[in-house]
């Protein structure tokens, strides 16, 4: 569910000037993706898995401390995983295999391990992605994706979406204020007679705006590609700094499997 997206795109970014903020966006993208892969690769059934999860958490909190991202921002990032907490809590009840008694409830052992691992892995990667979004603004993310060779058209679509999301969202908000100041309360199915046309006119306005934007671009000489600025050279040091997070995670994983 798309809960917790309020506040628009700019709300995710926490302005700052830490070493994490200064890293080139594409190195951060690669680092977070690699970290998530390491987290997902942690074996579910292993006895040392909880220790590894704790190790990963320590790594992330260290990065958060360096980036000066407050714990409150990280906690707010976690709201998106709420629907999956329910699923993870259900797993011990519905899974098969040998059962064990916890507080008088008969739970599946494998289900407990799987539910716990799902919860831990989802939480860790949500935290990592929250850190990425908190230290990299949307435009920088876009530059990063472009340097990682995402197809140009897709990057352009993304850039238009990011540029106009706040405009379209603002229109939606003004429509809601107008509705509610006229006494509208959307509590039952009949409200669709009002909300359907509202969403419909939002589409019409967005589409027409797209046409106007396209014409404006044509009149400024648009030929199908957008000009990009000079590309910063990224040295080995910067890559090493960025990749220290996933490499440390790999070290945790290796230590766990050797010692465990």
């Amino acid at each position: 569910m798309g809960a917790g997206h309020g506040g628009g795109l700019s709300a995710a970014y926490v302005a700052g000037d830490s070493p994490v903020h200064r890293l080139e966006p594409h190195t951060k993208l690669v680092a977070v993706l690699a970290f998530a892969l390491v987290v997902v690769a942690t074996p579910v059934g292993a006895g040392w898995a909880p220790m590894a999860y704790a190790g990963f958490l320590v790594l992330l909190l260290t990065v958060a401390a360096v980036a000066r991202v407050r714990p409150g921002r990280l906690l707010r990032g976690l709201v998106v995983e709420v629907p999956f907490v329910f699923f993870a809590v259900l797993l011990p009840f519905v899974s098969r295999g040998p059962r064990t008694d916890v507080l008088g409830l008969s739970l599946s052992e494998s289900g407990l391990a799987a539910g716990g691992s799902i919860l831990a892995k989802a939480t860790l990667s949500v935290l990592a992605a929250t850190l990425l979004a908190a230290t990299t603004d949307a435009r920088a993310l876009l530059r990063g994706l472009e340097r990682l060779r995402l197809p140009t058209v897709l990057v352009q679509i993304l850039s238009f979406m990011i540029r106009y999301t706040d405009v379209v969202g603002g229109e939606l908000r003004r429509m809601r204020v107008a509705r509610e100041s006229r006494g509208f309360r959307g509590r039952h199915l009949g409200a669709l007679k009002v909300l359907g046309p509202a969403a419909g006119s939002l589409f019409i306005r967005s589409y027409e705006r797209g046409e106007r934007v396209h014409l404006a671009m044509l009149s400024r000489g648009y030929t199908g590609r957008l000009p990009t600025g000079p590309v910063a050279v990224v040295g080995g040091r910067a890559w090493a700094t960025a990749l220290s997070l996933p490499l440390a995670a790999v070290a945790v994983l290796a230590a766990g499997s050797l010692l465990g």
Partner: protein
Amino acid sequence: MHVPDGFLDATTSTGTAVVAAAGVALALRGARRELDERTAPMAGLTAAFVFAVQMMNFPVAFGTSGHLMGGALTAILVGPWTAVLCLTVVLMVQALVFADGGLTALGTNVTLIGLVAIAVGYGVFRALRAVLPATRTGLLTSAGVGAFLSVPAAALVFVLLFGLGGVADVALGSVGIAMVGVHLLIGLGEAVITVAVLGAVLTVRPDLVRGARHLQRARTLAPRPDLAGATAVDAR
């Protein structure tokens, strides 16, 4: 519902990522046919619309409210290929900026919400549109059924993926029945909202609904004899 990291194993995630990449590559070519060089601004603005409308809460029934996933609606409004691009971009922003849906699960989410939901939703819509009478009611009915079926279809594919590469040992049948059951209800909400929004656009700007092109009658310009005299006077 976006799949987070850690739900499916690495092999399945990689597999769905390859499927998603292939689907998006096809969609990039298809969207050029739908929108030619207008692709970037039009798809971008439509994606912003999908993103905004997903934040809108619609009351559905019994005090519950839901929001649109929008695959079927977008496909009928702007065409299936552009819709795949819009939904892909929305999912990318949600994963990167809001951490909603895992980064390693991005391929899975694009496959489910982008490819499967749109393929089923739009496929059913086209099939029914061919059978039902070419009227507003026929169009809205096909759109509603398409939107309704797109949601449980995506849920069903998720259950299959979970069976292939899920991390828990669950009885697939019971999970499947539960997931599809819940998503049939969610699909009802999706259908109701899709029909309401589509009906509104059809009333105001029917020319913007790509899936309703066949309802448009070509307008022929003809001289109106009763006005011919007046125009002649004006022209002087």
